[in-house]
């Protein structure tokens, strides 16, 4: 670790803004310690292994929702064929392992199944549009 002035400036600003009394950081054993001036002290050694906190696509569930994400890049279809009705609608109750949509890739229709049961609370992608790997497709409410 080389000592960077701008980094320090920002660090100090941060400490001031948040009334931090002490920051200790050991690189070798990967430890981080932050002490607050206000009396509330977070004294426990915290692992400094920064998890590459990536936003939505990885967050597959919260306390309220189950997020169904796309397992591959392709085209999103809500029904097995243009004439057929959708696999699920808003408010549908779905079982674990039920097919909720298709993602087409290389002319192969990949059925996307739920990993747990729930009620379809939100359809996040329009029929026929492109989806990325990991893109949220549905929100299910825990049932």
């Amino acid at each position, binding site marked *: *670790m080389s000592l*960077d002035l701008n*980094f320090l400036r920002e660090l100090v600003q941060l400490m001031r803004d948040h009334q931090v009394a002490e920051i200790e950081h050991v690189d070798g054993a990967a430890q981080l310690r932050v002490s607050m001036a206000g009396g509330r002290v977070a004294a426990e050694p915290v692992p400094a292994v920064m998890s*590459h906190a*990536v936003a939505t696509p990885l967050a597959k569930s919260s306390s309220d929702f189950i997020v169904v994400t796309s397992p591959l*890049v392709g085209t999103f279809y809500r029904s097995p064929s243009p004439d057929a009705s959708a696999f699920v609608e808003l408010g549908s109750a779905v079982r674990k392992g039920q097919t909720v949509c298709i993602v087409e890739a290389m002319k192969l229709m990949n059925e996307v199944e739920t990993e747990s049961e729930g009620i379809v609370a939100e359809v996040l992608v329009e029929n026929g549009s492109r*989806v*990325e*790997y*990991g893109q949220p497709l549905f929100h299910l409410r825990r049932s």
Partner: protein
Amino acid sequence: MSDTVLIANRGEISVRIARACRALGLRSVAVFSEADRGALFTKVADEAVCIGPAPARLSYLNFAAIVSAARVTGANWIHPGYGFLSENADFAELLTQVNIGFIGPKPDTMRTWGHKLRSREAAKEYGVPVLPGSEPLDDVAHALVCAKRIGYPLMLKATSGGGGRGLRVVRNDRELERAFVDTQKEMAIGFGASQLYLEKLLEEPKHIELQVLGDGNGNIWIFGDRECSLQRRHQKLIEEAPSPTLTDSQRAELLPSAISAMKATRYLGLGTLEFLRGADGKLFFVEMNTRLQVEHPVTELVFGIDLVQLQIKAVLGLPLGLPDQQVWRPRGHAIECRVNAEDPWRMFPSAGRVDSCSWPGGPGIRVDTGIEAGSIVPPDYDSMLAKVIAFGSSRDEAILRMRGALLETRLTGVRTNVDLHLALLDNAEVLRGTMTTQTLDRMMKSSQGSTAEVAKAHAAAQL
């Protein structure tokens, strides 16, 4: 329909290809794995799509994900960059079947020139000198017979090896017997069908290569030579153009057969013919890379051309706008240092977050990178952060500028090998231009004790 190029790669070469597309007025699409979300290369392309999780086999090596990404983004061309799928003839073949263009040679050409043994045969056919060697070896007994005929020392090589794997030096029958078994075992793990063969060992060779461009109609251009002798575990570290030791008469001798071999196979796109040069100055063809090379910028700087644009134009059938000369003369000298995220002395990779970075600039300096302040260097892929390239009117000037550029290169958050580069640019063999593929190993061994000293000297020299 306007042309759209999907770039099936990551990091600096994805940025490089996106820039070439932009200069040609083509739309570009980047694909990325979850480990590369937010990376610079996903922002430089016109569009970017996540194709899978971090492991390359599930993303950058995933045929279906890449083809599907091309489909949903309307891309009708795929540029494979280097590494990953760039030399995979099966992938190229698949693309032709689904009506997507592969920016590289035809699959058949890749199968001939990209195959270690077949390319030897092809080269021989057109009079390109190759090292004495054997046919594919059936078993140990066969190997011993061949070894007797050619004479030790030898290299035992596997056709599907690479990057130092499937490669063993043997100096007598006993070593050959053991190596044969070991290599077979090594290749059985994850390297698929592989044939073994023998090749005469050149001691202390130099690595020299020719840059080829073909338009698929038999028109061939050779954009001079590069020397890439500074290697470690068969990974190139510093490359330059032209080679400081190749003489003009050697060049004149080498080119006609190389050109005729490329002409005869109607080579399309970029390729590199790799040669080894022995202590006696003789050159021998060893293999061909049927793709864009990491070190292509040194050639671009001395010829004033854009190889990636030319590659794309050649494959898309656009006019190249090149004069008719097959052989161009370089102007000046260029050197490239690969800046890697690693502790070069202890050979540890150094993944993590780049907290700040400041790249060099000014006259004669070019930087190709996929890194910016805040970038994550994932542990999943290779450790190259940037290529710092220096041009000079002479080799001396290029080296001087490179030294200055390295001193101006500052990264925090990850350890880099900049200090190793500075040490190399002070090495007497490097300065004389007499380095071989053994020079770096030799330097590392002799400096084992003085590592701390070098690091200290560098820290003092750093801004």
